[in-house]
């Protein structure tokens, strides 16, 4: 068998049903293998960045490993952003890239770049394959590393001559990776300690991160929260890990999280961190973060424990097992009729009632929050809705106003903050879950970074609905300029009308809609959601709307700037 065919057989052995990519010189033999036939469906993208984000969207929507394929040189450099994104958000990704012939490696050959070198700091591991006999072993190992332990991206760079070489293919049954030993079990004594601490706490809170979804530990989380009556904050990456509509759900903490979630997290006496990493966007000023709290930290990655905040009770291991054990241990400790920290929950509910998310719906322009609330309401009855977003104000409003009751229904770029993630991630999610309604809430700035993938969506039969919260600006940057740079709006004005997004959508074979008033909001969004093909809605919104609440960078998380604070300061 040829090396090129072996790549596809190996992907099939791993159960890959879809791969996203673009051919080019050094990967041509593998595309020739696609022409010979494969159970792996290939989705032809328009830019390798799109392919990478599609693979990420696929992975996050399905819980399986995403696969992206690219050629050498510019092919792989275009994949660098999705690889970095997957690294930051722990998304399992296998990137297969072509490399120039072995004899040309190191000579600055045409389209040669040091793929493993360029991606070194942002992959779990990478391989340059120059011997065809190694190929099946490397691909087996690549999938194993990508999905085991803390998930993440890996790169398999295959020299062109390796793809063209005949050999006896046999897919290995096991991997030989003596240095890769992710934690397999949980220390039972730590679980006992954790349960005791929860029982004793007056103001406990579950601080849930994206790792909980990666670990498929959401059922166990629900069990734990309900057993202990413990309020739950879910970070941006964890939206959907705990049902947003559950009475114990406090939603997102952090820079644009609610005041009640931030106060609850910061005034707690016990933080139970589950697959979360004390990111600066959550903690604000670290030294001022939750000063009175003892910390139980659950993570599959030992290096996250104590990295930023000391853990009083560290628990390393697979989260589903750990949290399930903790829920059972806690159940043993409590008496029947136990209600948990009732006074604490009442306190948090008072904060929730006093400081709700709010915005002023009056005024000349359509409000972006109204667009998202309408989308939420219009899709509330649907069985399976998957949301994706870009990065910026619209993303934060989506986090605030959407209701996600199930994991893998909110897919966003958290750690890297990659503008342009939304559209390709939505296409990838659609490939993973063809029966779901996939809706990308995007910004106008973000949309223009990967808009070419509309062609992929239209031609590959992967219909999505894109709603551009178009404020005509790089909105979040504009907000910072207004608040922290004395309103010097330097290079942030994109305009509402260039490009004409509806016409652009039509040019790509998609349906285009434009709206700018609240009156047309419901009917136009409804039409777009039900048109049966990829639709782009250009919702022209208030250019000056800011996202609140907000904790300024470097401020303590309790120093939240509220919508009303600003109103008061204007009145004063």
């Amino acid at each position, binding site marked *: 068998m040829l090396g090129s065919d072996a790549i596809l057989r190996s992907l099939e052995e791993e159960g890959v049903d879809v791969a996203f990519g673009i051919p080019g010189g050094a990967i041509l033999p593998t595309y020739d293998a696609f022409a010979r036939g494969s159970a792996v469906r290939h989705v032809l993208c328009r830019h390798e960045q799109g392919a990478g984000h599609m693979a990420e969207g696929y992975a996050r929507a399905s819980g399986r490993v995403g696969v992206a394929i690219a050629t050498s040189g510019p092919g792989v450099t275009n994949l660098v952003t999705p690889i970095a994104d997957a690294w930051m958000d722990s998304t399992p990704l296998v990137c297969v890239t072509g490399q120039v012939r072995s004899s040309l490696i190191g000579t600055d050959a045409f389209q040669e770049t040091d793929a*493993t070198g360029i991606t*070194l700091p942002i992959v*779990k591991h990478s391989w340059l394959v120059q011997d065809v006999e190694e190929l099946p072993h490397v691909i087996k190992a690549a999938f194993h590393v990508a999905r085991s332990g803390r998930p993440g991206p890996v790169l398999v760079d295959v020299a062109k001559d390796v793809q063209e070489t005949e050999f006896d293919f046999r897919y290995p049954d096991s991997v030989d990776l003596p*240095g890769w030993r992710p934690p397999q079990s949980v220390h039972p004594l730590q679980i006992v300690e954790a349960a005791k601490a929860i029982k004793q706490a007056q103001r406990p809170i579950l601080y849930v991160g994206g790792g909980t979804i990666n670990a498929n530990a959401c059922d166990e989380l629900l069990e734990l929260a309900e057993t202990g009556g413990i309020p739950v904050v879910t970070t941006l990456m964890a939206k959907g890990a705990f049902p947003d509509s559950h009475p114990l759900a406090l939603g997102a903490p952090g820079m644009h999280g609610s005041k009640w979630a931030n106060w609850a997290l910061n005034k707690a006496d016990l933080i139970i961190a589950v697959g979360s990493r004390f990111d600066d966007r959550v903690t604000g000023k670290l030294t001022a973060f939750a000063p009175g709290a003892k910390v139980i930290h659950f993570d599959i990655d*030992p*290096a996250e*424990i*104590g*990295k930023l905040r000391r853990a009083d009770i560290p628990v390393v291991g697979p989260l589903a097992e750990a949290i399930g054990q903790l829920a059972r241990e806690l159940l043993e400790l409590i008496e029947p009729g136990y209600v948990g920290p009732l006074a604490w929950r009442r306190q948090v509910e008072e904060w929730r009632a006093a400081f709700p998310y709010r915005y002023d719906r009056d005024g000349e322009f359509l409000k972006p929050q109204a667009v998202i609330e309408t989308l939420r309401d219009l899709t509330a009855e649907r069985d399976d809705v998957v949301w994706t977003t870009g990065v910026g104000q619209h993303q934060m409003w989506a986090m605030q106003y959407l209701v996600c009751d199930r994991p893998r229904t909110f897919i966003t770029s958290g750690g890297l903050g990659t503008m342009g993630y939304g559209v390709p991630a939505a296409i990838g999610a659609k490939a993973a879950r063809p029966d779901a309604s996939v809706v990308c809430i995007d910004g106008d700035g973000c949309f223009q970074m990967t808009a070419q993938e509309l062609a992929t969506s239209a031609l590959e039969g992967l219909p999505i609905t894109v709603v551009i919260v178009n404020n005509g600006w790089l909105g979040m940057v504009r907000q910072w300029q207004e608040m922290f740079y004395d309103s010097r709006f330097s290079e942030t004005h994109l305009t509402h009308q260039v490009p004409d997004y509806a016409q652009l959508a039509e040019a790509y074979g998609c349906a285009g809609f434009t709206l700018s008033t609240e009156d047309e909001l419901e009917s136009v969004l409804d039409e777009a959601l039900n048109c049966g093909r990829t639709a782009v809605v250009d919702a022209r919104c208030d250019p000056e709307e800011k996202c609140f609440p907000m904790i300024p960078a470097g401020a303590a998380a309790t120093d939240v700037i509220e919508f009303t604070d600003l109103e008061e300061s204007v009145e004063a």
Partner: protein
Amino acid sequence: MHTVSLLVENKPGALARVSNMFARRGYNIESLAVGPTERPDVSRITLRVDCSRESLEQLEKQMHKLVNVLRVSTLEAGEAVERELALVKVNAPPARRGELMALGEVFRARVADLGPDSIVFEIVGHPEEISSFEELLRPHGLKELARTGRIGLGRASAGRASRTQRVLH
């Protein structure tokens, strides 16, 4: 300053992955020595890093996650044998030669090469000894210096006796 000893798979890129991790997390490697071990498929990296105890713990955990890294250990002073080799070229006009030779003898440094106006010393020892030798040679005019970076192993007598038994280095 901490000495870290790593066993890594003898594969291309293993050293780059380790050194990159230090650079990426903002730590400077003060000294680095790489070489073969008793197993042909395993190399040993010994490195020195100046950081707090907490940072060291974080770095160790990050190194553990590297697929090529088989074992990470910290060599504690007193519980490890640490050595370094240095070659030192020093100004040695005939009039000073005797003095330098005597100095070399005190440190058990060998004369590796002798020229009309300079000497190349070869010295093996604990890195601090080498630093002392270097300082004493400096006033004579140190022309060139090459140090291998320290290597180390846990003491054969480690465990019960390690803290009390002082083995001369």
